[in-house]
């Protein structure tokens, strides 16, 4: 069997500040096979987004290893960028307010020395379902869904094989979320991408991912396949609480689980 596309082993991320050490991620391990889609699910403070940032070198790795195809990820920023790209949660914050769509997409092409930039921009815009009329617009002339499509296009324009998705639809309306999720699934099939997706929404992860890891307070709770989640074959109480919560409100039912009072 070939090496997993992404392997995270015993990853620990520690933030230090004001004399306190906080382990945002504490000994987390998982593997993602090529062309698979893996989900990290949890509530705020679970460390799920920190894992993505650690893979990208945006968060300090205190312990553990991250490898891509069995090797350490390329240390140089440019070489790494050719393999791994990320889509951020907030489409309003992830696009430079003064850069047109054209500029957003042509900059990575310029950095990596692509020649046929015009053709690539046109084709990646078509890939994410934006017409050529969007090419010279500024972010404030776009809706949230359109911005997120531009962010996806930016991630894909240099043809990476791994896409990290940090709550890519949680800032969007439900109908727009459906469009973006469909788009991501289609692109994964067409381009043979590997997804590592973070979300607080169990239903979104279930829809998008073959396997998932439930996290809480920086630690692993349990790893599940989609089939076991669908048949509610879960072993941890916390996962069960998340499952119940994802179905909405139930009158006359006690709290599924004690919730910590404050942080």
């Amino acid at each position: 069997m070939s090496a997993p596309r992404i392997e995270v082993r015993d990853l620990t991320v520690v933030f230090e500040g004001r004399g306190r050490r906080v382990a945002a991620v504490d000994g987390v391990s998982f593997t993602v096979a090529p062309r698979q889609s893996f989900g990290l699910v949890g509530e705020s403070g679970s460390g799920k987004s920190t894992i993505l940032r650690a893979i990208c070198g945006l968060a300090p790795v205190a312990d553990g290893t991250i490898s891509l195809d069995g090797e350490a990820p390329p240390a140089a920023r440019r070489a790494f960028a050719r393999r791994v790209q990320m889509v951020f949660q907030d489409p309003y914050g992830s696009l430079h307010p003064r850069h047109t769509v054209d500029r957003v997409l042509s900059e990575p092409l310029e950095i990596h020395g692509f020649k046929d930039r015009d053709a690539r921009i046109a084709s990646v815009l078509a890939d994410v379902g934006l017409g050529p009329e969007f090419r010279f617009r500024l972010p404030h002339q776009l809706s949230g869904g359109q911005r997120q499509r531009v962010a996806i296009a930016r991630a894909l324009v240099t043809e990476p094989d791994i896409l990290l998705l940090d709550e890519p639809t949680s800032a969007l309306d439900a109908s727009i979320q459906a469009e973006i999720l469909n788009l991501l699934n289609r692109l994964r099939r067409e381009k043979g991408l590997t997804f590592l997706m973070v979300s607080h929404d169990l239903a979104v992860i279930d829809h998008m991912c073959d396997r998932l890891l439930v996290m809480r307070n920086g630690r692993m709770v349990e790893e599940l396949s989609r089939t076991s989640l669908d048949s509610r074959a879960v072993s941890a109480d916390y996962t069960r609480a998340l499952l119940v919560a994802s179905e909405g409100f139930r009158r006359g039912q006690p709290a599924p689980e004690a919730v910590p009072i404050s942080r």
Partner: protein
Amino acid sequence: MTSLAPEKTDLRAWLNSDTPRSRGHARAIALWGALSDLARNPLTVFGALLILALLLTAAFAPLIATHAPDAQNLAGRLQPPGWNGHLLGTDELGRDIFSRIVHGSRVTLSVVAIVALTAPLFGLLIGTVAGTLGGWTDRVLMRFTDIVLAFPRLVLALAFVAARGPSIENAVIAIALTAWPPYARVARAEALTVRRSDYIAAARLGGASTPRIILFHVVPMCLSSVIVRVTLDMAGIILTAAGLGFLGLGAQPPLAEWGAMISSGRQFLLTNPWVATIPGIAILLVSLGFNLLGDGLRDVLDPRSARR
């Protein structure tokens, strides 16, 4: 006339379009949007007109001036406005005040232009580098900025001019040397918030180098605050230059410079008040123009003031 109308509306539609068809078109639309926002504030328009008048006066000074600025006429000294074709009267050497004001605008404008092109650029560079990199770089650069900021501008300018000899060039250099720290502060404050944003993280993940991020991603976000600040500071810079001229440390006679003109006119303030007040009014109007324009620019450009 009638054939012009459709063309006009075409241009308007082109400028207001929300589907730009090229990079240039996108830029034209953004510029037009900012200009029409500016144009809705009458005070800003008034300020802009004053600056425009200064620009035109400086550009066409020899055509506008009725006399040579340093042509003396000792027989017609200290004459009141209107006397014998002298629109604003004559000074103590019988030179035409109107012509000297007109030619003096070139001096004022070049002082403004040189300072506006050097100090803010330097400040922007220091500020964005410090703000983006953080850590030790930030600490060293900002302490250096604080040290320069601690020097009183006029005193440093006086010392500089005293060491190198009075001239308008030295006065400008002295002003520029002391004017940049506030821009560094403004740019750094802006850069500190910008560097945490997702679009900077995205640029980094796209493989962009740090200089590229500073230059193309951070600087554009800091630029508008600095431009606003520069415009509002212009009045102060003109006054400092005029102040140096007044003290005899800036422009040297017979160069027509507004501050020096006030200085030489002050001996006749009680007997022939126009000699000193007219250049004073010129300084006042130009300073007012820059301040009004700066206020309007702040409303349009400053990210902290309300977005439409």
